[in-house]
């Protein structure tokens, strides 16, 4: 077994959660790597959609931006951005949407807007992008993020996109019919919402980490599932495909211009 990084574990773990018949709304970075890893391994027919309008894209290298030419060139078709958000996302055609987070709370609400007060922020983050509507329109939401005490917080400073709501009940109360964040994958572990409370609990530990390390890196008194398992480490095949993808990507982005 090769050595691998926590980020590789996170990416591989996200890839494994994808199915061959999924239609994914993909973000840049870890989600893009995970979705394309799935496509190049166990899910060759998976449909990848980027919010730039590219449908059924099969990039040979990972995009650096959400609208790289590679995405349009390898797509089945490319539609306008209004059509993408109206007919495809809001139309309920996406089974899995990926989101990242600067802050995520125990009910999987996400902040990518500001740290601190909105009008006098300590840190100004990029903002919402597609997230508010991805969070409620996709069948399920997968979140990938680094596991730090500043990221996994008791309460987000700003709800950019809805998880299960401030008390875990608001998603249902607001009449949102989609499942929401069913899976949060960090570089340390996997968290899933508990059926009764919708609170995120750790369901799988990545190799090399401990419950104590996770407790230290989590901003709320995190709980562990009764059925806690260990994440299967990345296989040789998974690592090889992922690293080859990254190698091609770096080479291409160096060569461009």
């Amino acid at each position, binding site marked *: 077994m090769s050595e691998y990084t926590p980020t590789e574990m996170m990416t591989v773990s996200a890839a494994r959660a994808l199915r061959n018949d999924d239609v994914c709304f993909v973000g840049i970075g870890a989600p893009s790597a995970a979705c394309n890893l799935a496509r190049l391994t166990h899910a060759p027919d998976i449909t990848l959609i980027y919010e730039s309008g590219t449908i059924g894209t099969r990039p040979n290298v990972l995009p650096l931006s*959400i609208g790289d030419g590679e995405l349009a060139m390898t797509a089945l078709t490319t539609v306008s951005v209004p059509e993408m*958000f109206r007919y495809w996302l809001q139309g309920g055609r996406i089974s899995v949407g990926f989101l990242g987070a600067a802050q995520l709370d125990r009910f999987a609400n996400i902040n990518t807007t500001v740290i601190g007060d909105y009008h006098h922020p300590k840190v*100004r983050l990029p903002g919402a992008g597609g997230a508010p509507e991805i969070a409620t329109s996709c069948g399920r939401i997968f979140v990938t993020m680094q596991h730090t005490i500043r990221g996994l917080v008791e309460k987000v400073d700003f709800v950019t996109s809805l998880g299960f709501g401030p008390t875990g009940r608001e998603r249902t109360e607001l009449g949102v019919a989609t499942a929401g964040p069913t899976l949060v994958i960090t570089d340390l572990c996997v968290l899933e919402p508990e059926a009764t409370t919708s609170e995120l609990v750790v369901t799988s530990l990545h190799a090399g980490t401990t419950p104590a390390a996770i407790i230290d890196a989590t901003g709320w008194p995190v709980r562990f599932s009764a059925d806690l398992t260990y994440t299967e480490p990345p296989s040789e095949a998974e690592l090889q495909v992922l690293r080859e993808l990254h190698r091609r990507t770096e080479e291409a982005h160096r060569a461009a211009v």
Partner: protein
Amino acid sequence: MAVFVSLRDAVAATVRDGDAVALEGFTHLIPFAVGQEIIRQGRRDLTLIRMTPDLIFDQMIGMGCAARLVFSWGGNPGVGSLHRMRDAVLNGWPRPLELIEHSHAAIANAYAAGAAGLPFAVFRGYIGTDLPRVNASIRQVECPYTGERLATVPSLRPDVGVIHAQRADRAGNVLIEGIVGCQKEVVLASTRSLVTVEEVVDELAPPSMNSVVLPGWTIDAISVVPRGAWPSYVHGYYQRDNAFYLEWDEISRDRDQFQNWMSQHLGTSK
């Protein structure tokens, strides 16, 4: 009817102090040359509108063109933060910047509503988020049939809509290929429109009868500006200058360094 004019004349004729100006291009076809000409001409108090401010608005904000920013995602794609935008928001440098913050879906729908001549857009959005708390223009209507409450935003009808495109024919008809973003909607939603193109050709020759084409009579001014979208890209012409997006992270971190770069590359006074 589109007239072909120099970039300088096009900007002088269409963009006025205080205008609401949309410069669109979703990663692809970002109208950098126009943004930089607006900086050169010293336009002030603009309301800048773009889904993803990108480097172009970082430059315009840093040079003090903007009083207000309508946007949905403000980062340097694949790199990190927009330092000039952050400096304006956090420190009011070089001047305070009012934010009118939306989601992508909201702005895309608002452009489409503007193009369609409607006063507002309806969509299923913003559910359970804090954005309506900080943006009073986000409201709701009730469906007259189901009673569902849906989000609304005012349509976007900029004073000036600016896009870059691949090419125009001599009658000013413009072809857009690849990631078409909101390019058509922005031109149709705006009171005045300015399009830069890589080249002018005798025959537009769109590859499909259903290609994205803007008739010349929907456009006010066209300027031929080869590489007018650099450092973004133009499908079929040149690739994204990813190295420059990385460099910008350095250039823009420091106020002096930023101003030096602008003065050196745009000929603006420091």
